[in-house]
């Protein structure tokens, strides 16, 4: 047997040490003392600036939180830098948010200013609280996924360079939640975000019949198709695809890799708008199609950034205070959204899948 890399546990040691089904450690041991003491007994909070807030407990205790951006892909080296800062100012505690921001907390108001100074000096970006753009929920992309038809991290980087001041400072009518999904699997909340990018294929996949025969389970492959475009091809011991039924979702590729959906020169992204998760004022909403397709143009996707900026600027100009993207569009009407943004309305915008009945206009009242 080859020598193990330095410091690795041996097979025997691993066998001896391993434990199963213990679940995650209980969170209580990771709570800063002020959080533990006032757990479930908070009175209110106040936003002090774009990246700082203070929570006050009924006991009179306070905890100050400074929020910092993260690219989500973090090297251990950067994490160590964060931990050193947390040791210095936050008594050795750190937290992450559901949108992958990093939170530094301290009960000591005097530490807030030096903490923020050190974060800034070390190149961290403070912000993301309040009616602004917070961190972008996104997927793995070309960095680590087999199904990706764009790169999520690169798009996010280009987007947030453009919208940087909406994270660090400038306010919008309400919060705007961005997301990027590198395929329609959407391992992120693209389908309910204010403004989001989802990568799409546009061509019927090609089939390597020889490989399908050897690798794929035929019934599963047929069952994977949402539009029933796939049927058996007994002569080839494979499957065939009815071209006119295929909507290029790629689910067949996921269950049967020899059905290749990738067309690098014809793949790209769609932009969707108006989704929301919370129930405040109006209920949670799906994002809806704004732009059906823009070609992939790495490394910075300038056409996508331009399109997103146009939509965000139009919203910022037209929405009322507290009105989310989707609420603004519902108030003015989608026909007005398209005229204000100058986005072309196409056949692709009209649903011919599961939401057709809900979305066709059954009224003679609409804006011209």
């Amino acid at each position: 047997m080859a020598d193990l890399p330095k410091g690795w546990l041996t097979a025997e040691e691993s066998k001896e040490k391993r434990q199963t089904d213990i679940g995650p450690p209980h969170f209580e041991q990771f709570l800063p003392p002020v959080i533990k003491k006032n757990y479930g007994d908070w009175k209110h909070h106040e936003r002090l600036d774009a990246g700082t807030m203070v929570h006050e407990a009924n006991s009179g205790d306070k905890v100050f939180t400074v929020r910092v951006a993260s690219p989500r892909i973090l090297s251990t080296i950067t994490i160590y830098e964060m931990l050193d800062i947390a040791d210095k100012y936050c008594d050795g505690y750190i937290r992450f948010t559901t949108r992958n921001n990093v939170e530094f907390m301290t009960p000591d108001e005097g530490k807030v200013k030096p903490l923020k100074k050190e974060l800034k000096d070390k190149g961290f970006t403070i912000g993301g609280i309040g009616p602004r753009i917070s961190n972008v929920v996104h997927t793995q992309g070309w960095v680590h996924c087999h199904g990706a038809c764009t790169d999520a991290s690169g798009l996010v980087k280009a987007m947030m360079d453009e919208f940087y001041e909406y994270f660090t400072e400038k306010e919008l009518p309400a919060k705007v939640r961005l997301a990027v999904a590198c395929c329609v699997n959407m391992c992120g909340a693209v389908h309910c975000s204010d403004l989001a990018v989802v990568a799409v294929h546009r061509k019927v996949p090609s089939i390597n019949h020889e490989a399908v025969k050897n690798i794929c389970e035929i019934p599963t492959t047929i069952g994977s198709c949402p539009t029933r475009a796939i049927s058996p091809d007994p002569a080839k011991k494979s499957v065939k695809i009815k071209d006119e039924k295929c909507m290029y979702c790629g689910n067949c590729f996921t269950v049967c890799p020899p059905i290749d959906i990738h067309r690098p020169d014809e793949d790209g992204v769609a932009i969707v708008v108006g989704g929301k998760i919370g129930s405040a004022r109006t209920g949670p909403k799906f994002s809806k199609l704004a732009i059906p397709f823009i070609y992939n143009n790495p490394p910075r996707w300038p056409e996508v950034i331009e399109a997103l900026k146009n939509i965000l600027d139009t919203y910022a100009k037209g929405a009322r205070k507290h009105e989310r993207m989707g609420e603004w569009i519902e108030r003015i009407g989608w026909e007005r959204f398209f005229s204000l943004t100058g986005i072309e309305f196409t056949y692709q915008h009209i649903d011919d899948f599961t939401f057709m009945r809900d979305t066709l206009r059954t009224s003679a009242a609409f804006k011209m």
Partner: protein
Amino acid sequence: MGKKYDTPLLDELEKGPWPSFVTEIKKSATHSNMANDELGLVEKSYRDKRGYWKHGGIVGVLGYGGGVIGRYSALPDEFPGVAHFHTVRINQPSGFFYTTKALREICNIWDKYGSGLTNVHGSTGDLVLLGTTTEALEPIFAEYSSRGWDLGGSGSAMRTPSCCIGAARCEWSNIDAMGICNEMTQRFQDEMHRPAYPYKFKIKVAGCACDCVAAIARSDCSIIGTWKGDIAIDQAAVKDYAGKGMDINAEIVEMCPTSCMSYDGKELSIDNGECSRCMHCITKMTKALKTTGEKGITILIGSKAPIVVGSLLSWVVVPFMKIEPPYDDLYEMISKIIEWWDDNAKPRERIGELIEVKGMRPFLEAIGVPPSPAQVFEPRKDPFFFWSDDDFKK
């Protein structure tokens, strides 16, 4: 470790003020050959506009069917450092709090066995370790599990439950979201680690209808905290908001979806019986308004992303349930829900899609929940409906 590849396209993504993932990969590449080859591979993707990863193979740790996602490069000869580049999902502590000691230890172990690259956190909530080899999996698992960490879910299994910060640091939370999340995670360990479901099943817990964990959009079982009592009003604080420039009529009263509020320039009043508990006024006037009375949860079922038959948002199934630690009633309800799904679903059919096929009645009967107007926006429109023998006995 020295520079191995020229990366002119990725270098463009180190420009600009937002933190760069390319910088992160380069940082790890200073000590990891895997990260170095990852950099070369991703540069090639940027040049060719396509990914170079193969489907996940079946790799894992002994006795588990999930928690590790096999990942192999399609170009192992060109980039041998990423020939294996598996993902390890470490189940996060509920609420994402860490001591620096614990997180430093996690990173130290990862530096020893993997690329040094992470996602903190992945979309479902796990602390994701990106890039290691098959032979490292058993020692990695032994290192982490012996220090109290376990793997999260993957595949057709209970996925790692996740939650908002809840009562730990939020005055709006009606429930102990972190406590419920941790308890459900512990109770479903077997279902998380040994995939035996028709497809994935996700649980997310949000303390209120603001839903900072996107439970209603991203979990088959969405647990959202709510309350039954009145909203208590601190009139002095209302006056303070008005004094600081808030237009209470425009920003609060007129934005109330049920028009149950009024303001006469001095006092705010709420017709609590008509409140739908949407959270708008409470979040905008957090110093003036507080929920009171009985707290509990609403259980909503069904949400998912587009695959397979389109996106779904969760819908109300249990309008209100009072819960207390150790949450036996909640665990039993979720178990009944899963049992019905498991008995009836085809492979790769999520529970929301199954209910669309079967209808709400068989589902509600199976889990013992009566029909309620809270479950629908409006009743049926067409006069086509089923009657069962039970209806005639009544």
